């Protein structure tokens, strides 16, 4: 349990640095640190496929973010801050935080999952019947591709649409006369 506190503290410090620093490159590197800490935390939370996916996705996300922020001449933002708008936003977020903390009283303790106390939960059937009904030894793969395959179909559609949208935004007509020398 101590390792969870240490990792969460590391993630929180990296998040505060990422939000408050003025240099964009430092924020991007702190995002990389958050993703790395989250991946190690997934390993300790007994979720190996999530840890594997998180670390490669975080590396690719770093490459995308650095592509956007490096070589742009404006990495320092200056200007006057609106005082009133900032204070109102912080007060509203604080209220949301207090309201959220009272919800956590009704959750179970950490380390006591919900499906252990409810005998007819869905996870009970997935664990006990997963190998018999699908033949896959990785229970997570049997859930995403056999018991709950519609969610995977929706995810494939969302990913496809997002990538096509990104290609449409970045398209540029008439590029062939403007290819300058590759510097």
């Amino acid at each position: 349990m101590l390792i969870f506190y240490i990792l969460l503290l590391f993630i929180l410090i990296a998040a505060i640095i990422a939000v408050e620093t003025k240099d964009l490159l430092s924020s991007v590197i702190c995002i990389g640190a958050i993703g790395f800490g989250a991946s190690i935390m997934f390993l300790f939370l007994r979720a190996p496929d999530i840890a594997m996916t998180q670390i490669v996705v975080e590396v690719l996300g770093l490459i995308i973010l650095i592509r956007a922020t490096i070589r742009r001449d404006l990495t320092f933002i200056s200007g006057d801050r609106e005082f009133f708008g900032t204070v109102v936003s912080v007060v509203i977020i604080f209220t949301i935080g207090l309201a959220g903390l009272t919800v956590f009283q009704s959750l179970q303790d950490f380390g006591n999952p919900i499906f252990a106390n409810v005998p007819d939960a869905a996870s009970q059937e997935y664990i006990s019947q997963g190998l018999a009904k699908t033949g896959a030894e990785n229970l997570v793969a049997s859930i995403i591709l056999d018991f709950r395959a519609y969610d995977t179909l929706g995810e494939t559609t969302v990913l496809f649409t997002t990538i096509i949208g990104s290609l449409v935004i970045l398209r540029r007509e008439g590029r062939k006369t403007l290819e300058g020398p590759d510097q």
Partner: protein
Amino acid sequence: MLYALCFLLFMIGLYSAVVKKNMVKIVIGIMIMEYAVNLFLIMLGYRLGGKAPIVGEEDIAGAGGQVSDLFLNTSVDPLPQALVLTTIVICLGSLALMISICIRVHEKYGTFDITEIRRLKG
């Protein structure tokens, strides 16, 4: 207490997405919120001293692939892991979309500041 720290991470991301004026800082705030939600979902399904939800050779008891009772009582919840697995890849796609919008806006207006973009009219 661990849930409260995770919620604090979500609040930090929300603060950055609402208050900041730099477009890349807004994108970073949204990414921090996504990381916090994934962490929270996996923490919900954790069992103290549990095993990963992969059936090994010693967990099969009985013919036809029935798992032993020990495995049923010590494995962590596989359902939140299945939900988060697809979410992480969608986060990467949405990050690519947001960054391509930021690059386009920077090309047209020359700045990442959202207050400047509001004032200029093309």
